[in-house]
C-alpha cells in the first residue's frame, strides 16, 4: 500500500496552557490535532499525578498532531511561543500516513 512521509509532533504541556497552544497551532495553519489527558509522571519538578487535582494548575495534557514535513517549522515556531516559559516536552518523530491529502 502507498504511504506518505509525515511528522508526528507530541507536546506534553500544562493543562492551563492547552487552549493557548491549540489556538496558536490553528493560527499556524494546523487543522487537525488530538488532545489526551496525561495521568501522571515525573520530571525535573518531581512526581505528579492527575488523581485528586482540585485545580487545573497541576494537570497536564498531551497535544498530538501529524503534519506534512514542510509545515513543521511553522508549527514549531507557533508552539514554542506558547510553551517557552512553561513545563513541558516537545517531541518530533517521523511517521508515515496513508492519506496524505488529510495532512
Amino acid at each position, binding site marked *: 500500500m502507498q504511504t506518505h512521509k509525515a511528522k508526528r509532533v507530541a507536546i506534553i504541556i500544562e493543562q*492551563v496552557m492547552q487552549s493557548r497552544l491549540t489556538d496558536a497551532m490553528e493560527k499556524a495553519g494546523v487543522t487537525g490535532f488530538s488532545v489526551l489527558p496525561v495521568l501522571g509522571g515525573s520530571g525535573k519538578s518531581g512526581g505528579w499525578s492527575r488523581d485528586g487535582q482540585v485545580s487545573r494548575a497541576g494537570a497536564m495534557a498531551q497535544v498530538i498532531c501529524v503534519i506534512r514535513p514542510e509545515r513543521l517549522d511553522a508549527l514549531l515556531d507557533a508552539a514554542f511561543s506558547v510553551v517557552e*516559559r512553561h513545563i513541558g516536552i516537545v517531541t518530533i518523530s517521523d511517521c508515515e500516513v496513508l492519506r496524505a491529502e488529510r495532512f
Partner: protein
Amino acid sequence: MDQILNLAATNLLSPIILSFALGVAAALARSDLNIPEAVAKGMSIYLLFAIGFKGGVSVADHGIDATLALSLLAGLVLSAILPLIAFALLQLMGNLSRLDAAAVAAHYGSISIVTFVAATSVLESSGIASEGYMVAVAAAMEAPAILSALWLVSRGSGAGRMDAGLLREIMLNGSIVLLVGSFFIGGITGVDGLAKIEAFIVSPFQGVLCLFLLDMGLVAGRGLRGGSGVLTPGVLAFGVMMPLVGAGFGLATGLLLGVSAGGVALFMVLSASASYIAVPAAMRVALPEANPSIYLTLSLGVTFPFNLTLGIPIYVAIASALATG
C-alpha cells in the same frame, strides 16, 4: 477562651472535620482510597450551587441594604491589599525569591470557597445568623489578589503575563459563574424557589460536604507528602501566621461595617483563607517560573487544614464575642 475551646472541640469532632482527617490520614498512609475526579467535580458543583442559592434566598428574604455594596467594596479592597501584607511577611520570614513570594501572596489575598462553605456550615449548626450576600463577597474576593501579585512582580525585574484570555478565565472562572449565578437564581426565586428544591440542596448538603472534605483531605495529605521538602520552617510558620493576620483584617472590616456576628466571622474566614483552585491556575499562566510546589503545598497542605480545624472555631468565637451588628 472557654467558648473558643468548646467550639473548637465541637468542630473537631464534627463529621466534616473527621472526614477531612480520614482523607489526610489515608493519603499519608499511602492508601489507595480515591474519589474519582468526575465525582469530586460533581460534588463541588453541587456545593457551590447550594451555597449560592441559599445566599440569594437569604438576601431575597431579608432585603438589600447599604451594607451589601459596602461589603462588596470591602471584599475587593481586602483581596487587593492582603497580598501586599503577605508579600511583606514572606520577605521577612520566608527567604523566598520575589517571584515565589508574589505567587504565594496572591493565594492569600484570594479565598478558599471550601473553607467558606465549611464555615457557613459551622455557623448554621451553631445557630449563628450571617448575611446571605457574603456569598457575593466571596466571589468578589477571588480575582483582585491576582492583579496585586502581578503588580508586585512588575515592580521587581520580572514581568507577569496578563492577557485578555487570562483576565477572562479569572473573571469567568467556573466557580465564580456558578456561585454568582445560583446566588441570583436564589435571589430571584426567593423562599418559594427554595421550597421547591429544598430536598435536594438543604438536606443532603452536610453529607456531600463530608465526602468532598474526605477528597480534600486526600489531596491535602498527598500534597503534604509530596511537597513538604520544599517548605522551610519560616514558610511553614507563614502558612499558620498569615491566616491569623488576614482574619484580623477581616474582623476589623466586619466590625466597621456593622454586620452580624456570622457576617464578621465570614469576613474573617474569607480574609484568612488561601485559594487553591483559581489562583494556582492563574499563576501557572501568568508566573510560570514560580514554583507551584511551594504555593500549592502551603495553601492546601498547611493553611487549609489549619483554618478548617482550628481557625474557623477561633474566628467564630471572636466574632461572636465582639460583633454587635
